[in-house]
């Protein structure tokens, strides 16, 4: 299933609509990296609210999206991980370290904004 990527100001929103195959995931990764480049985005929100499974491949892909987009100067927030998914991910040792995670889309955007602000302030030495 194709994942639509929406542009919202400085941010991109990838809203996952249903179960994803491994091909879908690699497709998403590629599309996102290109989109970040094209729109010169500051952040990417990946909304996984509807996902009811998160396997190691999906977790790894999310990690590599984080790393890749960081190289392009954007941050990634994974939002809407369901409680039971969070629990099983932790048991499998998939903790998405280094990725911003948040409860929902709204929070995710707020967190990305805060992180970007902090970076800017940091660069100018407050």
């Amino acid at each position, binding site marked *: 299933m194709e994942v639509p990527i929406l542009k919202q100001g400085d941010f991109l929103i990838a809203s996952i609509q249903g179960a994803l195959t491994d091909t879908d995931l690699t497709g998403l990764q590629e599309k996102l990296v290109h989109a970040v480049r094209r729109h010169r985005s500051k952040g990417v929100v990946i909304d996984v609210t509807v996902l009811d499974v998160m396997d190691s491949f999906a977790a790894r892909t999310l990690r590599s999206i984080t790393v890749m987009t960081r190289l392009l100067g954007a941050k990634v927030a*994974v*939002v809407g*991980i*369901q*409680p*039971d*998914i*969070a*629990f099983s*991910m*932790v*048991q499998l040792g998939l*903790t*998405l370290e280094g990725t*911003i*995670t*948040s*409860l*929902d889309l709204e*929070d*995710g955007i707020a*967190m990305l904004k805060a992180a970007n602000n902090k970076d800017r302030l940091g660069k100018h030495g407050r």
Partner: protein
Amino acid sequence: MVPPSTQFPERFLTLAEMMNISDQELARRKQILEFGPEDEARLQKLAKVSEEYAQEVIDAFYRHLLSFEEMKAFFPDSELLARVKAKQKAYFIRLTQGNYDLDYVEDRLKIGAIHEQIDLPVKFYLSMYNFYLREVWKHIFEIDHEHPDEMMEIFFSLMKLTFLDIALAIDTYIDSRERTIKALQQEAIRELSTPVLPFREGMLLLPIIGQIDSQRARQLTEHLLLSIRANRAKVVVIDITGVATVDSRVANHLVQTVDAARLMGTKVVFSGISPEIALTMVTLGIDLGPVYTVGDLQNGIEHAERLLGYRVEKVDEAGLPRETM
């Protein structure tokens, strides 16, 4: 500290071990009843007659038992009844076969435990011994009616053995009951002791009291994650003042809870690690990793407030700022 032996699942222990019945304890029980090797020898003389009448006695006993209305519920179908009868028969025959060792005890305990589990009232369970003894008495002189004294001795031996069994059966009943009560209590404590309390907007408080095992850690984490979503929490303060010991397993569970909460975008602050626990953890080389810890609940809440951007201010009667915290 919980001794390591109690951490093993109970199913690996025999009933006798669970009830602390060792060879010494068995010897002691026999001693109390004055049950000696000569009794064992005498009982074997009963073997033949016991086998001969076992079926008859059992049929009579269950007819008697089932004449009580409340007993019918325990044996709803004839298949079950036949199974129970077969067990009971094996039991009676076993009584006169010698080797009254720990295996014998284990057997007895199992039968007791099964009856306890189906909630058979102990009065009915014990009536079986009464019935059995009387039946044996009726037939005992068929073995040898020329030596009534000797037959009496045999009967006394049988009585000692049945009393040994009765004691074991009652102990199983008590033990099972205690176990059930304890399990219920623990469950109640478990449910009572893991409340997730909304403390401020976006802040949850989770005081943990008592032991943390895998099952409880799981339950606790699930409960916390659901509450995080329901309350849209951003920060959770987990207070472990009431946790007596933290070993590597517990620490592992706590780290998992923190990781799971983080996946949902929530920060976790740990509070209430006592100096003793801190010392044990360092000695054991336990590392909580990236988990943020503070000394007591007050610090925990203050830190959480800072994370959320709250500032608590003390005011005088007129509501004017007096002193900031």
